[in-house]
């Protein structure tokens, strides 16, 4: 059974997601040995960024996000594009900051797994529901698609086939299955939650007590009284000599979903490159 990480990245006018994907791939290899990661993109990947990737794969079929600014319309294709039997899917604006290779054993017990609890930079469970109003109002499974896993097989395929239909007809599905606090845009989190709700597999594909999680840096999740526009404006970030990253004086481990592109400085990329073998 082949195993690997996969992410889909499409640049827009503001953000170079391929650069983020490159940093993510570097971080994977820096803290984890013998891992594979593939990038799904139609954008040009500079030669010097290609090294950390196992494969660079074109988005299957047509580019459904060609005219979109927030390019999520192709995300369901990751199931079809992944070259691995078992895949951990990540978003590009993430870094892996410690050894997570043991996650494969835990995830291998499932056909499909989504994180349904996320942590703050202080390693506290996120309880704030500001960004989850649609989930609460419609009793949707609290899934985070930014980190999920699938094993190729009937169950995962059924899920992704339905996800394709939902993403391509999101107004219809959101209106029918999530009419309260109606979300006026298509998101992978809500679409995945709807797919799970329709199939009825929530208990099989998530566990709120699982240690498979990530640090989510959206500002309102951090438990702050004074919520800034950007977290990068209000807490320090620096690398220790041993290669560990601190945010706001807290050491970061596992997966960091940094959200704000300005976090990913050239200095951080240089630190990730330093001594990393792939």
């Amino acid at each position, binding site marked *: 059974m082949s195993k690997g990480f996969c992410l889909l990245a499409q640049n827009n006018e503001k953000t170079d997601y391929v650069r983020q994907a490159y940093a993510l791939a570097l971080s994977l290899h820096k803290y984890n040995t013998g891992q594979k990661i593939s990038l799904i993109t139609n954008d040009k990947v500079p030669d010097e960024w290609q090294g950390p990737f196992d494969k660079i794969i074109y988005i299957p079929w047509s580019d459904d996000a060609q005219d979109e600014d927030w390019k999520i319309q192709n995300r369901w294709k990751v199931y079809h594009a992944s070259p691995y039997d078992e895949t951990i899917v990540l978003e590009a604006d993430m870094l892996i900051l410690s050894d997570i290779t043991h996650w494969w054993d835990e995830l291998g017990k499932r056909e499909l797994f989504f994180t349904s609890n996320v942590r703050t930079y*202080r*390693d*506290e469970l996120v309880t704030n529901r500001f960004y989850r109003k649609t989930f609460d109002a419609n009793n949707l499974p609290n899934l985070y698609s930014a980190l999920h896993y699938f094993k190729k097989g009937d169950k995962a395929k059924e899920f992704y086939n339905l996800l394709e239909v939902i993403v391509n007809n999101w107004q219809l599905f959101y209106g029918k299955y999530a009419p309260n606090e109606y979300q006026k845009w298509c998101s992978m989190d809500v679409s995945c939650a709807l797919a799970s709700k329709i199939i009825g597999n929530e208990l099989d594909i998530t566990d709120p007590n699982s240690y498979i999680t990530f640090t989510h840096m959206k500002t309102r999740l*951090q*438990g*702050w*009284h*004074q919520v800034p526009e950007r977290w990068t404006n*209000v*807490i*320090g970030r620096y690398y220790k000599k041993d290669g560990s990253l*601190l945010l*706001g*004086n*807290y*050491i970061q*481990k596992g997966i960091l979903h940094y959200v704000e592109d300005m976090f990913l400085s050239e200095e951080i990329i240089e630190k990730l490159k330093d001594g990393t073998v792939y």
Partner: protein
Amino acid sequence: MTKGVLLFALNNLNIDYVKQAIYCAKKIKKHLNLPVVLATDNVDYVLNKYPFYKKYIDDIVKLNFYETTQTRRFRDGTMSERNLTWKNHQRASAYEISPFDETIVMDTDFIVGNNILLNAFDTDDDFLIYRHIEDLNQDRPDEHRFNKISDRGPDMYWATVFYFKKTDFTKSFFDLVEHIRDNWHFYRLIYQIPQSNFRNDYAFSIAIHIFNGFQRTNWPKMLPGKLWLTSDADVLIKTDKDNEHYVFLLDKKDWPGHYTLGAIESANVHIMNKFSLDRHIDEVFSNE
């Protein structure tokens, strides 16, 4: 292994911490029956003003003069306040000052009301402290104010009372607390603490955070029992039942000068209104 309690008393112009310490020691003797050592910068004052101190205090340690200009607001309820010198820097040196192998250090305005703290001596842990407080005033639900040392900072621990064994480990810990104290303005900027005053709760919390490798762990363990707190906006008005039942006027939120009656009995209570505590102690000591 010697065991005892260490109290610090450094008076300012209006607050007699020595008087509080003797009262605190009286309660310690009653409930914990432990030796009590008082660390103070004015031994003569203790000897002359409170000649009966030996009933409750076993020994006195003279502290060297530690120059400080920091002041803070001390309230007596919500309608009266004074800005006074705040000499709190020497607690970080508790490791060197304590003559005991195992020590409980407590604020002089921490009133012992039961023997729960004796259980600290029965643990294998080198250092115990409270992570949370129980606010007697339920009209003050702003728990977040005490949960972290700053909005973006690490967990708050209460140096009001803590226990330590003398070991290499705790020696290193107190060395770090002293280092933080001596470089306070650096650390308070790094940890985004708006107040410029040095505060032991913050220094201990930062040291704990650093000792934990800049992450949350299950160290240190909590002291047994609860740390009850009344703020200096509350007023201690009377005690009953041989001074074990404390009655307070508790500050009504957003309604200065108005209070709710509240009481607590046989509990360990941090009474932050020093003036009302002082008035109560005067009544008790009138018979000494």
